[in-house]
């Protein structure tokens, strides 16, 4: 198709670079510099979408991010499908493919439009009043149908391959908005040598200047001035200019989120390049120059394709060289729209009439229009329009002295047109200012909410502050930039005046519904185009008792569409205020929420995907384990070897072999993931006394002890062996998963409660590799490798620690056991971990040394009745519950959780206590998490006595074993209870939790 509506010259498109594209499968041609919307309009295509609720045909209304109707899906392939993009923001590239949304089978013939026929019965909130019976019909029948009708585009179905970047930045002055005020602010701040970031959501900076063809600034054509100003900013090393970058969120302490779009406008983007970048900017000073948005007029049938905002039409004409129609009617309440009428007229578009709501329009623009022969109808409103897929005519009615339109359907004048421009005036964009918690105040002169009291170090300039007119915006912007630069501690720039000619002022306008003389309960005068909210819906909400503007919004859904009310909120508010009979400022605005315009999930997620989503932590011995064919499991961020299967072994067989090796010979285990904290200082022992239930003062250097720490509520938080290396130095270990939490808790207490204690805490979890050597022959393997310490039975008893050398490496050697066997834990600097591991393996070869994993470690400790925090305990177990009350230092006055342990319920006899369970059938391994009851025949709710915490096949006992927490369990030992499983019941007898070597003689081997 040819571009029948392209002007012969002018505009910022590149007429030498045609771009072909497809919309709904039809091929068209546009030009480089077009948006999808301008290119479609150049081809005479106005019908681009269907509305949310009634599926009404809709066309392009706006020219920017405020577009409510022209939402499209754009894709290169399925993995890059992006729904709900505004055609007014989609930059055209060669081969672009886009489709309309929310229609079936086609945009022109949409089954969903049936909803429009039922519209009289589907007012705001209709779904709250019906679909009540039968009871299950809502979820089964109605809801799926309503869901299918709702939604707009479709979600992509394949994983997005694109990358997203994130960056942090600081600056002296952040300027949001690159129109005349923002550019002037950046120029001033740059002149003051401030570090400046200037961002704008559009592809080109310039804002309103991009469509300005008549004004001059300092003697230059406005667009020439713009080019020079941008060139000057580009030369400034301290200025960063970010086009296609939306300031979307304004957080506390001048923290501003910017979303930069990097590749969506390219025909062949580099697949390695990020698609978007999220900037998180901390600015000393912020200048908001976010401009203003034109308001639609709320008249009956104001939503047909071909009805658009007057300034948008001007933008299409001047910036894109597109005539948005051939015969126009202009409806306005202020002078600004006359400029659009004149521009269209000069470009050869017939302007059939200007319907001005004001009784006596006057001023230079009005005169110019009159002089150009344009018919001006004062005190005239639009009472309705006709045309199914494109506006065909508008009916103009006179407004009487009382502000009421002449009644009767026949009254008025029908004017044929294929373009209806409307302008209710401009609404300052105060979104970011309000997000920052700045207070707005209603300005009756401009009939707008304007920034009043900022909450952050920010200034508003230009139209977003209600300052209209090019000269005023430039001067105000420059002054704001200068003041911001000075406030940021940089130089102020000399004040600058701007000599402007030919610009016009666009203040004034109207708010709310315009008179039409028809039955207000019947006509559809749209307030929120996308969500199909009409003036009568807003009035209905008020009639139904919704008095707060937040209620009206939620009940009608006005302002909740993807444009978040950019074009609709002020009109809805004005209609509500009239219906409520209250002054508009008293009714107030709904809260502005981030983001200003929608931002991709991917931009928020940034680099965090796959391996970078959360670091996978590997021990120094991990590569060896991988080479040895280990099966791994995830524990927190760590991966740990679970078992080391030999050829043909399953987990059961491998674990059986590993357990027997430890019980009969010697096993080697990578314990490097254990949390480690070095606690140092004159008050280290006192600090540990307070953190742990145990007493530490009398622990001699060279000895270690199993410690338990509680939360303030008295429940077990973590455990681990603590070794005293010197009077003022402890080597603390924690559980793998608890390492960070324990350190944070310790720091919290140290810094906030006991700042008087002289203690330093250092995480050493990743500094030490830990190699556990367990089994009756462990000493024989290790002894030849140890230098600088006697590890003999008497010299180095159970629960000792020595600094020495192992395999030639500086080490901390612990004699501890989590298996019940003679055991050592060799701590060496992580870099030597693998070398020492392999040295021990070599030394153990003659002893049949066997590497084992976490599963075997679990079985070994369960046979011994040792608890695992987080498995036997769940945050509701006291030390006594798990049989550890003996650890509590008897002479200690206080420790974290001590007070809570004294509460009545903590000593109740029916608390859950740790016991062992034996099933009747020795082959039956219980399910961890299964519940224990006294009588399985009871109907629900069945009283539960406890639950299975650990269950394994014990190779040592050659039968199944389990640990459990059971109410009053210790007193029940010997009793038979039941574990009900779906469809069957398992009989269990309660026993002591220590299944093997109850006397502990093997520890002392």
């Amino acid at each position: 198709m040819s571009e029948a509506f392209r002007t012969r010259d002018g505009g910022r498109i590149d007429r030498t670079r045609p771009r072909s594209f497809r919309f709904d499968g039809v091929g068209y041609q546009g030009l480089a510099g077009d948006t999808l919307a301008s290119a479609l309009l150049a081809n005479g295509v106005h019908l681009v979408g269907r509305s949310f609720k009634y599926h009404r045909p809709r066309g392009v209304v706006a020219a920017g991010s405020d577009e409510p109707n022209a939402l499209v899906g754009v894709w290169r392939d399925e993995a890059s499908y992006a729904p709900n993009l505004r055609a007014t923001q989609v930059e055209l590239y060669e081969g672009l493919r886009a489709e309309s949304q929310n229609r079936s089978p086609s945009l022109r013939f949409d089954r969903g439009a049936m909803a429009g026929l039922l519209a009289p019965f589907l007012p705001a909130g209709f779904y709250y009043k019906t679909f009540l019976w039968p009871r299950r019909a809502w979820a089964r029948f109605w809801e799926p149908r309503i869901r299918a009708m709702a939604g707009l585009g479709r979600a992509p179905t394949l994983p997005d391959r694109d990358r997203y970047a994130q960056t942090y930045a600081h600056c002296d002055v952040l300027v949001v908005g690159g129109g005349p005020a923002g550019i002037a602010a950046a120029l001033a701040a740059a002149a003051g040598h401030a570090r400046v970031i200037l961002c704008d959501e559009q592809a080109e900076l310039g804002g309103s200047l991009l469509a300005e063809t008549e004004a001059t600034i300092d003697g230059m054509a406005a667009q020439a001035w713009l080019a020079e100003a941008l060139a000057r900013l580009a030369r400034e090393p301290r200025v960063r200019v970010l086009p296609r970058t939306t300031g979307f969120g304004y957080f506390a302490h001048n923290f501003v989120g910017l979303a930069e779009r990097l590749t969506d406008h390219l025909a062949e983007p580099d697949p390695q390049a990020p698609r978007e970048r999220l900037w998180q900017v901390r600015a000393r000073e912020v200048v908001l120059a976010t401009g203003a948005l034109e308001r639609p007029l709320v008249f009956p049938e104001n939503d047909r394709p071909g009805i658009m905002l007057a300034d948008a039409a001007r933008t299409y004409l001047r910036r894109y060289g597109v005539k948005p129609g051939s015969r126009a009617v202009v409806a306005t309440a202020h002078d600004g729209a006359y400029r659009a009428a004149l521009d269209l007229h000069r470009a050869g578009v017939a302007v059939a009439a200007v319907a001005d709501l004001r009784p006596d329009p006057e001023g230079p623009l009005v005169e110019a229009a009159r002089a150009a022969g344009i018919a001006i109808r004062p005190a005239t409103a639009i009472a309705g329009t006709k045309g199914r897929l494109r506006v065909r005519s508008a009916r103009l009615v006179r407004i009487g002295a009382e502000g009421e339109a002449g009644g009767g359907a026949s009254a008025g004048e029908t004017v044929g047109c294929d373009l209806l421009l409307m302008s209710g005036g401009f609404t300052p964009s105060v979104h970011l200012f309000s997000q920052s918690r700045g207070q707005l105040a209603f300005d009756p002169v401009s009939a707008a909410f304007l920034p009043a009291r900022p909450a952050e170090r920010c200034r508003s300039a230009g139209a977003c502050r209600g300052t209209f007119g090019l000269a005023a915006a430039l001067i105000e912007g420059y002054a704001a930039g200068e003041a911001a630069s000075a406030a940021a501690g940089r130089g102020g720039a000399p004040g600058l005046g701007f000599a402007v000619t030919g610009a016009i002022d666009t203040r004034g306008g109207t708010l709310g519904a315009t008179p039409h003389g028809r039955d207000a309960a019947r006509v559809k005068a749209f307030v929120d185009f996308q969500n199909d909210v009409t003036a009568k819906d807003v009035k209905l909400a008020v009639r139904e008792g919704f008095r707060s503007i937040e209620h009206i919004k939620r009940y009608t859904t006005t302002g909740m569409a993807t444009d978040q009310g950019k074009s609709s909120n002020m009109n809805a508010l004005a209609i509500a205020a009239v219906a409520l009979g209250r002054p508009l400022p008293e009714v107030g605005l709904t809260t502005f929420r981030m983001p200003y315009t929608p931002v991709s999930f991917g931009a928020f997620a940034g680099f965090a995907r796959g391996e970078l989503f959360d670091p996978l932590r590997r021990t120094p011995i991990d590569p060896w384990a991988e080479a040895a064919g280990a099966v791994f499991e995830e524990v927190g961020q760590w991966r740990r070897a679970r078992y080391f299967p030999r050829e043909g072994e399953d987990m059961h067989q491998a674990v059986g072999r590993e357990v027997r090796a430890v019980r009969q010979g010697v096993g080697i285990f990578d314990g490097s993931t254990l949390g480690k904290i070095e606690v140092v200082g004159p008050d280290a022992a006192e600090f540990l006394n307070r953190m742990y239930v145990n007493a530490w003062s009398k622990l001699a250097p060279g000895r270690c002890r199993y410690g338990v720490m509680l939360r303030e509520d008295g429940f077990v938080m973590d455990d681990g062996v603590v070794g005293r290396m010197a009077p003022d130095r402890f080597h603390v270990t924690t559980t793998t998963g608890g390492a960070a939490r324990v350190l944070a808790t310790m720091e919290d207490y140290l810094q906030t409660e006991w700042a008087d204690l002289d203690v330093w805490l250092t995480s050493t979890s990743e500094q030490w590799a830990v190699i556990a050597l367990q089994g009756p022959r462990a000493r024989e393997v290790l002894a030849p490798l140890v230098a600088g310490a006697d590890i003999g039975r008497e010299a180095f008893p159970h629960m000792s620690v020595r600094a020495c050398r192992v395999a030639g490496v500086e080490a901390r050697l612990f004699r501890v056991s989590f298996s019940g066997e003679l055991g050592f834990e060799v701590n060496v600097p992580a870099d030597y971990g693998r070398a020492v591991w392999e040295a021990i393996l070599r030394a153990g070869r003659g002893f049949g040394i066997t590497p084992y994993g976490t599963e075997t470690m679990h079985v070994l400790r369960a046979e011994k009745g040792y608890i695992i925090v987080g498995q036997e305990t769940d945050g509701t177990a006291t030390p006594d519950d798990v049989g550890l009350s003996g650890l509590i230092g008897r002479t200690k006055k206080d420790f974290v959780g001590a007070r809570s342990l004294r509460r009545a319920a903590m000593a109740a006899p029916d608390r859950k206590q740790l016991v062992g369970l034996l099933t009747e059938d020795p082959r039956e391994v219980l399910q961890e998490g299964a519940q224990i009851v006294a009588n399985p025949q009871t109907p629900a709710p069945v009283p539960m006595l406890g639950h299975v915490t650990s269950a394994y096949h014990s190779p040592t006992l050659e039968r199944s074993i389990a640990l459990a927490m059971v109410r009053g369990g210790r007193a029940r030992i010997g009793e038979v209870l039941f574990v009900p499983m779906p469809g069957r019941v398992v009989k269990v007898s309660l026993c002591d939790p220590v299944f093997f070597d109850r006397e502990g003689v093997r520890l002392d081997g």
Partner: protein
Amino acid sequence: MQRFSALSLFRQGLSGHRGWRAQWRSPEPKAAYDALIIGAGGHGLGTAYYLAREHGMRNIAVLDRGWLGGGNTGRNTTIIRSNYLFDESAALYDHAVKLWEGLSQTLNYNVMFSPRGVLMLAHTVHDVQVFQRHIHANRLNGVDNEWLSAEEAKAYCPPIEIGRHLRYPVIGAALQRRGGTARHDAVAWGFARAADAMGVDIIENCAVTAIHRDAAGAVTGVETTRGTIRAPKVGVVAAGHTSVVMAMAGLRMPLESYPLQALVSEPVKPVFPCVVMSNTIHAYISQSDKGELVIGAGTDAYTSYSQRGGLHISSHTLEAICELFPMFRRMRMLRNWGGIVDVTPDRSPIIAKTSVPGLYVNSGWGTGGFKATPGSAHVFAWTMAKDEPHRINAPFTIERFRDGLLIDEAAAAAVAH
């Protein structure tokens, strides 16, 4: 009360909907009531409804400093489930689910309760142990909750990525089929309309500034920005601001208030059939009837009364969503907001009498109060009317923090509420 039905909608449609009347009045506060409820959220309005309906207390008022339903009722992600571990919690939340199942019909207001299933993903061996414990306990308590393999979870919710290549692969899931979502605003409005119809005064824009007590310490009424209101019983249901209100009666609550954020995407056609929660990677998601993906996660780390959270929290949430559902990376955040949640030390609520005669409190719902709305309101109304707790809320006292009878779902569940 003007009945709502397809027929009434049709009739009104014929006359341009001119005949609809206000769903609730906007009365001036009277000088005295039999009982006052501070906080016109779902729990407070529901309490008034059940006081009027089940206990015949109709000379009562609900006060709110803002607009009704404007706190956490209107800010949450609307997830409903009852698969809690402990008997006390299961009883409370399942009581609520049973009321949810008939709430639209009871209130003659479509609250859009949609039992589309709540799927909780297990990513680690530890998750599996915890979920199995829940499933067994739930079954014995008569609460539905079942284990699904990763493949079964994907069949139930096709967008879930279950590949082994993921950083945290899905290795199974717990599914409560009776769980789901409801329309949050409709819950507040439905309760407000039904309570109002029975004579309850709902007084908006009326902030309580003091709680009056007599010489014996008993409650006699409140001072408000709209004058003094006398009442022998006052129930505080003020969510994130409970501590502030209770301090007016000299009571210090075991509560901390945190911002909790949520967000929605732009609306799309149906793509997500149920609710999915993952505690290990911190996010939950469902799709609203309008088509928006509704997403939330945990609270911000610091206490605050400011109804907004940090950017890094929403980023972290979306990292998790994109990891689980990589096809949603190109979806866009439409709106993000925050509320203030009141959190108890054991993450279970307080629904109880207090040491001040005539003063009752319903608070501490943390991040999960919406799901309990009708159940909470129902037992709290009982407690206020009879001056003694209902069997179901008897364990949820303030004194449990003194005595140690905690109901620690957070510690036990390892699942975000």
